[in-house]
Each structure stands twice: as structure tokens, then as C-alpha cells.
């Protein structure tokens, strides 16, 4: 486990050195602009739009980092040939992979936490003091983080067996398909035969259901999120990430690195 932690902390440091956290400046500017503008150009949605805009920005920026950096975690080490030096040491391939994963999730956690603080500051400027229901925001931010952890796992899986460009396409494709997983399950199509319907239903359960983590609408309107849902989502993310990372480790361990 020490090896995993060493790789993770180095991945985190590398991300900071690569100025990944610079996106926070963009986020801060966006939130400041929204806090000033929205009250003047709209009606009655000053608070809810700050929440939905803030959560959307946290999610979109996080997805970009998760996909683009996640895909590069392994391929960059291979291109720069630093991977060979590392694997020559007593580090297992799965340890390397897990360390990289944990490192990026750590980066995303720091990034998301900083953006959440920025969001609270923006909210405070629009209405102060903050209400009790405003703490539901933290639940939404936590669920976004779970989603990002899942996307990183998928990006790493794809980057283990294909080119970075295709890995990005596959990850974004699975993300979009995952957003519609619920629709795939409940879709009513007259022409499809029962076998195809069953197949679609099966695929909908295999796809990562990103809709599970979406509570933006509820939180933007100060509605609570059931604790049981948060618990179930946490386990869903853990199980899904573990499965995807196991698959990634299997592929990576068999990959010919010569």
C-alpha cells in the first residue's frame, strides 16, 4: 500500500505543477460575474441560478480534468518512458495504476472542495446569512465527486488498451450514454421485439448510471436529498470503480510494454 500512496502523492504533485488547479481562477470569475449579473437580467432566480451554475461548473470542469488528465495518466508515463524506470522497481502494475487513480481523485477532491468554497462565497454575496437548506449543496458536491471518480476509472480503463484520442472519445461516449441509462431502461418503442428490449435493459444496467448522482435540480430549489440515496450512490460508485479498476489492472498487467 506504501507504493500506491507514493505514486498517488506524486501524481497529485505533478497535477499541481502542471497548473491543473488554475481552472479555479476561471471558476471564481464565472461565479463573481454570475452573482453580479443574474439579479439584473432575470427575475426571482438569483439564488437558484447561482447554485445550478456553480454545480454545473464544478461538474463540467471536473469532467474535463477527469477525462483529459485521466487518459494521460498512463499514456504520458509511457511516452516519456518514465513508466519503465518505475516498473523496474518493486512496484506492481496494479499498484501503479491504483496510485495514479488515487492521485487524480485527490486532485479532483481538492479542486472540487475549493470550488465549493467559492460557490458558498458567491451564495453569501447574493443572500446572507445562509439558510440551513444551503448545506444540501455539500451533498450535491459530494455526489459530483463520486461521478468524477467513476469517470477517472473509465478514462484509465480505456487508456490502458487504446490511444489517448480514442480513450477520450470512449470515455465521453460512455459518459453521455450513462446520462441516458435511465431512459434506455424506461424507453417505450413499439417496433422493437422483446429480445432487443431485454438486451437494451441489460445494457442500461451495465452502463454507469450518471443520473444517480444528479441532484442539482433538487438542491437548486432547496429540496433535501434522502440520506439513503447518498448511501446507495456511495456504494454504487465504490463497486463500479472497483470493477472498472480491476478490469483496467487486468488489461494493463497483460499489456506488452516493450
Amino acid at each position, binding site marked *: 500500500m506504501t507504493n500506491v500512496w507514493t505514486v498517488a502523492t506524486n501524481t497529485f504533485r505533478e497535477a499541481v505543477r502542471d497548473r491543473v488547479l488554475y481552472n479555479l481562477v476561471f471558476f471564481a470569475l464565472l461565479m463573481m460575474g454570475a452573482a453580479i449579473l443574474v439579479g439584473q*437580467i432575470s*427575475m*426571482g*432566480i438569483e439564488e437558484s441560478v447561482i447554485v445550478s451554475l456553480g454545480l*454545473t461548473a464544478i461538474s463540467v470542469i471536473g469532467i474535463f480534468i477527469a477525462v483529459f488528465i485521466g487518459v494521460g495518466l498512463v499514456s504520458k508515463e509511457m511516452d516519456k518512458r518514465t513508466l519503465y524506470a518505475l516498473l523496474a522497481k518493486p512496484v506492481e502494475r496494479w499498484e501503479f495504476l491504483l496510485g495514479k487513480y488515487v492521485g487524480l481523485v485527490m486532485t479532483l477532491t481538492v479542486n472540487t472542495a475549493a470550488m465549493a468554497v467559492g460557490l458558498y462565497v458567491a451564495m453569501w454575496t447574493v443572500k446572507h446569512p445562509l439558510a440551513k437548506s444551503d448545506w444540501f449543496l455539500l451533498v450535491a458536491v459530494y455526489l459530483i465527486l463520486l461521478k468524477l471518480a467513476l469517470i477517472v476509472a473509465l478514462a484509465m480503463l480505456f487508456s490502458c488498451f487504446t490511444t489517448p484520442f480514442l480513450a477520450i472519445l470512449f470515455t465521453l461516449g460512455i459518459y453521455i450514454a450513462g446520462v441516458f441509462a435511465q431512459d434506455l431502461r424506461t424507453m417505450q418503442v413499439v417496433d422493437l421485439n422483446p429480445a432487443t428490449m431485454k438486451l437494451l435493459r441489460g445494457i442500461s444496467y451495465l452502463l454507469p448510471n450518471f443520473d444517480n448522482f444528479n441532484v*442539482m*435540480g433538487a438542491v437548486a430549489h432547496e429540496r433535501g436529498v434522502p440520506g439513503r440515496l447518498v448511501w446507495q450512490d456511495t456504494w454504487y460508485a465504490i463497486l463500479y470503480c472497483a470493477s472498472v479498476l480491476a478490469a483496467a489492472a487486468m488489461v494493463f498487467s497483460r499489456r506488452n510494454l516493450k
Partner: protein
Amino acid sequence: MKSRTVAGWLLGALLLAGFAGVWQLQKRIDAEQRVTRVEQDELAFRSGNLVKKLSLEYAPLMGAIYWTRAVQYFGEKHRLHQKNLELLWPLLDIATTLDPHLLPAYRFGSMFLSDHPPRGAGRPDLAVQLLERGLKANPDYWRLYQDLGNVYYFDAKDYPKAAAAYEEGSKNPKALVWMKVMAAKIAAEGESPETSYFLWQQVYESTTDPAVKQNAEEHLKLMRVVLDLKEINRLADEYEKQTGHRATRISELVQAGLIKGAPKDPLGYPYVLGEGGKAELNLYSPLLEQMLMEKLR
């Protein structure tokens, strides 16, 4: 060296002239396209469900954007005194499809739709549709019943339905007591200036939006005038009973001790007695035009 400096100045001048030309040209193109641009938007994004799918997980933000577009569209039309509000309903439809819990879109949107031109689109039927959709998605929010009752009362002039809406809303434990009182009053009397004044007062007190507050304030002023005129006429009738002739000036009512001082409208203009001794607004009062507009509705 010298020729390079000249070329530099020339290029700089060309750059400035180019951008100045582009700026002026864009202004003309904007003026040319002002009418058609909005129509193109409508064609591109007509279906709320399609926009929802395209929004992926971010439908609440898109809902807020569409609601802002609706506000901007309504405000712009209002500013330009244009009565064509064809896009208002599609914009509100998309905004509430994207975010069914966007309460301001139902509350303010129904006002935009129901109010008579030039204040609104003059479509109380669509306002009712919007509010009913809002109530389906937010059954616990009693203020939507208040808005529904207001639309039926003020714009659709359907008093049984207005009373039913207030009655239904009053069943919510969070609803204010006056909802039940209004339900009974409207069911019994239909429209009356006192009820209208009270309902506008509720709108005025319950909103934080300056535009809605101003609209409610204007209506309250007009309602105040109606109530004042009614009272002055009542006193003029009493004066007639006492003296045997109809007063032709307000000062006669003052001298008889029926009124303390010359009564003034909410803008400070004294009321007058017109033809047949009936109380009227002063010819110089800006409220006169608004009253006539209300009567023409």
C-alpha cells in the same frame, strides 16, 4: 527605417478604420435582423423535451437560462411597445419543461401571459395552463393557487373558478387565512373593488421583484381611485338627500361637513365633481389615462 515607421502608422490607421467600419456595419446588420433573429431562435429550440435531452445533466441551469431569455424577451417587447408576444409561451414552456420546479417561471410567467396588452400577452388560457402544470409539479406550493385564482379573477373574469382556486389553495396548512376568506367572498359577490384592492395588496406584499411590485402598486392606485370615487358619490348622494339638490363642486361637500378638506387621488390631484354631480378624476391627473385604459379592457 523611415518607410517602416510610415508603414506601421498606415497599418495602425487601417486597423482602426477597419474596426470602426465593422462596428458601424454590425449596428446596421443588427437593426436589419432585429425582427427576424428571435424567430430563428424559436425555430431552433421549440421542443422542451429535445432541449432537455441535449442539456444532459444540466437541465436546471438551462431552465434558468430559458427563463432569463423569457424575461429579456418580455422586457424588450415591453420597452419597444410591441404587442406581438408569440415567443413568450414557447420560452416559458421550455423553461418549465427543463426545470419543473422553477417557481418564478410559473408565478411571473403567468402574469406576463395573462395581463391584457400592452402590459402582457392577454392569454389567460395559457397562464392557466402554465399554472396547472406548475401545480402538478409543485403541489405543496400554495402560492400557485393564489396566482391561479388571480388569473381567473382579474383576467379570465371567471369568478366561480377563481373562488375554487383560492379554496383549493386554502387547504394547504401553510396557506394564509385570507385565501379561504377570498374564496367565500368571490363565490358570493363575484368582482368588487374591495376584493380587487385586497388581492393586489397581497401581490404587492408577497413579491420582492421591483417590476411586479410596481405593477401591483399601479393597480392599487387605480383601485384606490375606484374606492374613493365610490365613497365621494355616496357622500354626494347623502348631500343631495339633505339639501334637495346635487352638489356641483367638492367644496360644497366640505362646507356641509361631509368631507374634511378636498380629497385627493393617490398622485395628489384633487378629485372633481363632473357632469351630473358624479365624482371624477382631475383632468390633469396622469391616472385618468390609466383608468380609461382599464375601462377599455
